[in-house]
């Protein structure tokens, strides 16, 4: 029984004005996630792109490892690792043109870095020295968003505004599987579809929302299926296959840029580490499951493909690893320097112009700081 037949079954005599708006069939995702690496489709993949993806994914893995190490040294307040999800992070960054916008969640530091942000600036939030360490307009990367899914309507509004201004801009918004349960996810997708806004929603389904597995999160056949209810296409992709994620996102970006409206992409991947360094993943999942995903590692998949096609040898692998090592060493060195903070900045940028009340409070803090410096504080 098709969806349309089901509707007829419980609504036998619709009023005349009631018409199904579209045939949902073309919007439905394929049953199997789209794959490129290890399939016949790989032969058609651009060699230069594959090499680029490989280098970025390896760098990303090293970045994740370095950032996690920095939490252990107390240099980062917290780090939600995207180890295992690097293919999604990197593809999301590489698929965008310079004028496009990326809307990352708190786990997507790597996507911001792959888009060209200074790694230290991208870690500002997680380091704890301020909330956003960069000018979002400079790289067209929205602030890393901590509340779940609330950045999605921002992406819709920005893309809508750009189109109103006649600019050829696409927004790509990232969210996790847990975030798809939030009201803002629903409202953002609905607005995007109604407005036909040039937005691509990328759901990284990494299996768990902290500890809650997907089957307790949704009863939908897949998260990509949710698209059909909003009237946009849903696409399912192997989230560990960097070439596949890139291709699906590139197609969605092209579709949006050409005025076709939004797409919901679900990338099926796996979070190899705990939710953050503060979480204990052994309480909610077993090692065998994690191990099974190791055979489907994004680096492994790319390395196998590139090696088999003769596009990568031992020397090439070493060169990529050396480059990643340099990035990590530089990150380590710069993160080991204490940030210089000015407490008076607390009162800056609350309002364009400080209110009388904030001026009084700033004076109070100034006096406290002066007393501290003079050693006269009580």
């Amino acid at each position, binding site marked *: 029984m098709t969806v349309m037949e089901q509707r007829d079954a419980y609504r036998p005599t619709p009023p005349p004005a009631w018409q199904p708006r579209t045939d949902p069939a073309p919007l439905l995702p394929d049953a199997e996630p789209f794959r490129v690496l290890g399939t016949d489709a790989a032969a058609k993949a651009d060699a230069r792109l594959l090499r680029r993806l490989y280098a970025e994914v390896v760098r990303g893995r090293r970045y994740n490892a370095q950032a996690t190490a920095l939490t252990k040294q107390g240099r980062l307040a917290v780090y939600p690792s995207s180890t295992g999800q690097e293919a999604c992070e990197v593809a999301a960054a590489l698929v965008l043109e310079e004028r496009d916008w990326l809307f990352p969640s708190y786990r997507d530091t790597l996507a911001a870095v792959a888009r060209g942000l200074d790694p230290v600036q991208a870690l500002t939030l997680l380091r704890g020295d301020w909330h956003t360490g960069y000018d979002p307009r400079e790289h067209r990367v929205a602030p890393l968003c901590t509340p779940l899914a609330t950045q999605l309507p*921002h992406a819709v509004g920005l893309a*809508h*505004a750009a189109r109103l*201004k006649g600019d050829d801009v696409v927004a790509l918004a990232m969210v996790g599987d847990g975030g798809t349960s939030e009201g803002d996810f629903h409202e*953002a997708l609905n607005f995007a579809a109604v407005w036909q806004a040039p937005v691509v929603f990328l759901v990284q389904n990494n299996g768990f929302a902290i500890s809650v597995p997907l089957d307790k999160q949704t009863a939908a056949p897949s998260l990509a299926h949710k698209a059909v209810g909003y009237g946009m296409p849903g696409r399912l992709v192997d989230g560990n296959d960097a070439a596949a994620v890139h291709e699906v996102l590139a197609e969605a970006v092209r579709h949006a840029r050409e005025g076709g409206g939004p797409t919901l992409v679900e990338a099926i991947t796996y979070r190899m580490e705990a939710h953050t360094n503060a979480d204990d993943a052994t309480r909610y999942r077993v090692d065998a499951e994690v191990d099974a995903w190791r055979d489907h590692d994004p680096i492994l998949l790319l390395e196998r493909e590139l090696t088999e096609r003769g596009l990568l040898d031992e020397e090439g692998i070493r060169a990529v690893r050396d480059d990643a090592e340099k990035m990590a060493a530089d990150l380590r060195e710069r993160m080991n320097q204490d940030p210089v903070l000015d407490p008076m900045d607390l009162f800056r940028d*609350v*309002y364009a112009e400080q209110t009388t*009340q904030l001026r009084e409070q700033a004076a109070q803090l100034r006096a406290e700081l002066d007393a501290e410096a003079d050693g006269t504080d009580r």
Partner: protein
Amino acid sequence: MTTVAAKPVTMAQAFGRALRDAMAADPSVHVLGEDVGTLGGVFRVTDGLAKEFGDARCTDTPLAEAGILGTAVGMAMYGLRPVVEMQFDAFAYPGFEQLISHVAKMRNRTRGAMPMPLTVRVPYGGGIGGVEHHSDSSEAYYMATPGLHVVTPATVADAYGLMRAAIASDDPVVILEPKRLYWSKDSWNPEHPTDVEPIGRAVVRRPGSSATLITYGPSVPVCMEAAEAARAEGWDLEVVDLRSLVPFDDETVSASVRRTGRAVVVHESGGFGGPGGEIAARVTERCFHHLEAPVLRVAGFDIPYPPPMLERHHLPGVDRILDAVARLQWEAGS
């Protein structure tokens, strides 16, 4: 220049005129919300805007307050100046996460790189016989959120002036529109709108010498009426209309209370945890040695907003204000 004589204009019309003039003056001003387009808003404040500026500038959105506020954040990120309507006070609550976590904080989170020139229109307060969820006084929630400006006009001229100021502001402004004053009229010349002082200035609506009534929005006309009635009792009451709750005009309020030595804060929002507590504390901190009596509050009861047939018992009226004024003849220990 043609001159148009002053004629009676309602507050709703003045709000609408302000939106129209702001949109005409600046193409980046966009109005969005539920029913703001074809219908012209349930209070007709946005009447004619979609026709004049097109539905891309005055947009009927899906029914979703978080979506309205959230997309407006994105529009502001791209350089537009969105004006969003929340339709009714209690309908705004689903949008609070966007308002509190993003609208109010975006400038601060990005260290000034990403201001939020966004205006949030909230028709608020009771007295119109609305059923539940249509009459809340939600100002305390907004006041408690750093990063937001909160203004509320009480006159037709201020409705125009504060709306223009809100839209012109590079910061987010919540403009609380007193629903029961929407149809109040005043002689007003739209060709020469009265200049309003910058957001953050209170005004003395009625000078007086024996006590100060500190109030705002829908309670201003009630206080004016109470001040007239009090003359019979020998009281000469000063009425201060705050106009802006954030930032708060300590200067005007304190100067008034120092002159009169007595103060009553009047608002229809509940008293406990309400704006009056903050205002009374500020006045006490600044004017303690000038006070002849404790700062009193006349507020709505601390109850969920009552059904329409009972709301007159809840809303502070002239008698309740006069009772408080009588209590200002306070003696220690009494």
